[in-house]
């Protein structure tokens, strides 16, 4: 299969403008007749559905949640990047493009990333117009902060709830289109298959999660905005119900899955507390603006802390190892996520971890609190304020900036992070990999599009902070509504798609048989227990560090686990009722296949880049060693039959505008 990224001609900064100005359009009278299915109602899905509705298409939007407002985009904390240069600190579209390409370790498509940087500015305008209450300065203008991997301040934020506010904005626009009748919303409907007619995506099969009814939905095109697959690791910062099923069902129908092994491990999450743990909670990267990461330098202090004989505040300044500041003086605590996570792993592997399991480091706000306190005291004209006064003032400033995050930490751990440093550890957070798409965000199946985290397109091997919200909304508001016209303009003579076609019947039958199969196994082990075991294998062998030996072993382990699942899983309840265990069973079955593909992908990529760190490929200082000569390509995997090996298709990446350099944050 020859993969064509369909990148338009022209200079990098003109491509999108020129292309947009010359692409095919669909006339308003034709839009009214054309139906589009959007699966997912997070930032990408909701913004796409709303915008397509505004344009006049007939849209059907699906979510497995009880309301489109619940999608996991809502949990994004820190912010959204945009090249506005409101801070006058040298930011530009090119710089955002460059930071994103470099941050992704040169494994993403130049033209897509540049387009992302261009439209980033429109997103902020759009969100403000919707009433998103971004943080503001005293003059009433929008405030910014810094995020990892960059040296400008371009992140817009709404306290630590930016995702919530942006999603509510998109949800409101979607609700308006629903009320106007342009979008029909299907809550509590899970997509379980894509239907292809004459090679084109023409509909989906869904399960009504309340009644269990299997339904057919036909349309001229299908858009998947179904998020990432981080839950393959069981423990992740993703919501409990986030899953790969929509994207995986598309893969089974011939769509290619690109760079599946590129997983983002976020450095600042609350550590695991026990075997019963169901999910991990992120502490926003924005905290690294003010928090300093450290571990005790001396092993005897580490032991004393683990045994409770010493508190972190007892450790003298000179006995602390602020390892990020030491190893990466240019970026310090604001190195990108992959670098920060690996550094934490190194510190813990060397025996400096600070909790009972040895898998935690400190994130300390004491010096920021004192710094802000002094500044506040000064601005209040206080003469020689006491330390206690400074501390009080400083805590107020930190509370205003990060209050909800500190509160969240306190609720979960029972500790007060104003008084004692937070304990943090890396956790799975985001998946850069996803369905392969071309410049139009169209998969290799004509008429099947993927937006947001569900596609692979913009983040390469590592995503920079505050870029997921940007990409989701860029795709949904400003890219797909244009590019889908390239496909739909060729469909204006296609009548309404008939859901009684044999292809729909066959797909419906296959879905019903698959669900019945899960019910009929009647084994002894719960779905959850299989998911946990899969997660452990993935984290151990395909997590922060990977090796050929480990991956090879893990592939076999997953195959065995999958076989065991199909012979011994127990799904209670019935097919035709509200049955969360059945929903989970279908999702975990897909994770059991995706996990193997991730391992195959990680084995193929004999280099270390971004979130993919192969132990065999590292510099003497332990940094990742990329291999641009052999691996400057996108791995797009075809895998419709799991009894055979996945087939690799390569899209070579061309860099005409940036020089491939060793990514250094030293």
């Amino acid at each position, binding site marked *: 299969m020859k993969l064509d990224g369909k990148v338009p001609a022209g200079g990098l900064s003109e491509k999108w403008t020129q292309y947009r100005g010359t692409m095919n359009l669909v006339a308003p009278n034709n839009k009214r007749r054309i139906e589009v299915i959007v699966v997912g109602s997070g930032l990408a899905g909701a913004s796409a559905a709303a915008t397509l509705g*505004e344009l006049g298409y007939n849209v059907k939007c699906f979510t497995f949640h009880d309301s489109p407002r619940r999608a996991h985009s809502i*949990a994004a904390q820190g912010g959204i990047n945009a090249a506005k240069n409101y801070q006058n600190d040298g930011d530009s579209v090119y710089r955002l493009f460059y930071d994103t390409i470099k941050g992704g370790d040169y494994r993403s498509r130049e033209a897509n990333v540049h387009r992302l940087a261009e439209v980033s500015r429109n997103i902020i305008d759009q*969100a403000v117009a919707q009433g998103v209450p971004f943080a503001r300065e005293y003059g009433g203008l929008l405030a910014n902060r810094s995020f990892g991997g960059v040296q400008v301040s371009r992140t817009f934020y709404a306290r630590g709830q930016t995702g919530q*506010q942006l999603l509510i904005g998109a949800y409101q626009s979607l609700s308006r289109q629903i009320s106007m009748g342009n979008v029909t919303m299907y809550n509590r409907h899970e997509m379980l298959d894509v239907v292809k007619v004459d090679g084109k995506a023409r509909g989906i099969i869904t399960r009504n999660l309340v009644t269990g009814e299997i339904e057919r939905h036909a349309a001229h095109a299908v858009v998947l905005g179904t998020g990432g697959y981080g839950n393959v690791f069981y423990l992740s910062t993703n919501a409990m119900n986030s899953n790969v099923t929509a994207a995986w069902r598309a893969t089974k129908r011939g769509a290619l899955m690109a760079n599946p092994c590129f997983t983002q491990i976020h450095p600042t999450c609350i550590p695991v507390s026990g075997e019963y743990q*169901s999910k991990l909670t992120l502490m926003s990267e924005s905290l690294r603006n003010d928090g300093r990461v450290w571990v005790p330098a001396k092993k005897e202090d580490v032991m004393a802390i683990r045994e409770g004989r010493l508190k972190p505040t007892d450790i003298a300044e000179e006995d602390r190892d602020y390892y990020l500041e030491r190893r990466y003086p240019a970026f310090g605590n604001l190195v990108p996520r992959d670098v920060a996570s690996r550094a934490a792993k190194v510190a813990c592997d060397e025996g400096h971890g600070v909790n009972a399991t040895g898998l935690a480091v400190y994130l300390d706000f004491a010096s920021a609190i004192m710094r802000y306190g002094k500044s506040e005291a000064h601005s209040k004209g206080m003469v020689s304020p006491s330390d206690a006064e400074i501390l009080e003032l400083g805590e107020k400033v930190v509370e205003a900036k990060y209050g909800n995050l500190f509160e*969240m930490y306190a609720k*979960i751990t029972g500790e007060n992070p104003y008084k004692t440093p937070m304990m943090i550890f890396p956790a799975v957070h985001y998946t850069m990999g996803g369905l392969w798409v071309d410049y139009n965000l169209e998969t290799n199946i004509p008429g099947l599009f993927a937006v947001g985290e569900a596609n692979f397109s913009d983040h390469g091997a590592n995503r920079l902070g505050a870029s997921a919200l940007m990409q989701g909304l860029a795709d949904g508001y*400003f890219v797909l509504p244009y590019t889908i016209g390239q496909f739909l303009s060729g469909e204006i003579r296609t009548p309404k798609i008939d859901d009684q076609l044999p292809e729909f019947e066959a797909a419906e039958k296959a879905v019903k048989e698959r669900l019945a199969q899960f019910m009929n196994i009647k084994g002894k082990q719960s779905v959850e227990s299989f998911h946990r075991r899969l997660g452990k294998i993935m984290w151990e062998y395909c997590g922060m560090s990977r090796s050929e030996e480990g991956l090879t072993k893990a592939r076999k382990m997953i195959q065995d686990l999958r076989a065991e699942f199909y012979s011994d899983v127990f799904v209670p309840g019935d097919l035709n009722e509200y049955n969360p265990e059945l929903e989970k069973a279908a999702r975990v079955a897909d994770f059991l296949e995706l996990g193997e593909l991730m391992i195959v992908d990680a084995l193929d990529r004999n280099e270390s880049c971004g979130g993919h760190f192969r132990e065999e490929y590292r510099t003497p200082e332990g940094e990742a060693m990329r291999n641009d000569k052999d691996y400057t390509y996108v791995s797009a995997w075809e895998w419709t039959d799991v009894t055979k090996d996945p087939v690799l298709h390569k899209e070579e990446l061309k860099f005409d505008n940036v020089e491939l350099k060793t990514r250094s944050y030293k």
Partner: protein
Amino acid sequence: MKLNLKVWRQKGAATGGKFETYTVEANEHMSFLEMLDVLNEQLIAEQKEPVSFEHDCREGICGTCSMVINGHPHGPMKGTTTCQLHMRHFNDGETITIEPFRSNSFPVIKDLVVDRSSFDRIIQSGGYISVNTGQAQDGNAIPIEKDLASEAFDAATCIGCGACVAACPNASAMLFTSAKISHLNMMPQGEVEASQRVLNMVNQMDVEGFGACSNVTACEAECPKEISVKNIARVNREYFAASLASEKTSSK
């Protein structure tokens, strides 16, 4: 710690329900939902049907988790969703009663799961600013005073969980509705449609069968995001002003 659970079990909307009693072994670091996970694993091991409850982000922001714990929506801790409630706040040997959010406008789907789509319809009736993609001016074109933006934000932090309805003896949705109206009406962008918005949304709230507000303020006390009843006062004022000043009546 050993706990006795009295859990509401109900097969579906049409059938009645009743309490069932279970014992479960938990530990104090678990979240409340992780404790229920343990119960469900126990039930599945006995080949029994697990307790259905809704949950998703498990970090207090998506608004999916619900349930009334010992008489309090989201349990006894102030400003805390069920998913953020940890077992360290309960005692060994305690009996915990768990019920769904109860309101005619939130019909039970199964066990602790209720249908809250009435909230979506309230938003659809006017909880938005009418701006199409691409119509926006520059983000800094309209300065908004920091404190005003912050107050609008406080209202906007509502997670749409429905605890306010469950807490209210009238099952009123005034806190939810007023938080959304306040968020949008306070911002200059939302001003243009302010009076129509308040009329339409309050009207839709009535259509959905939610009760009237009689200033009990249990909603604020139980709200996991501590949304203030000031929003209700603001919306009452705006509603009267809009009804008196406008020739237009509600569109629905």
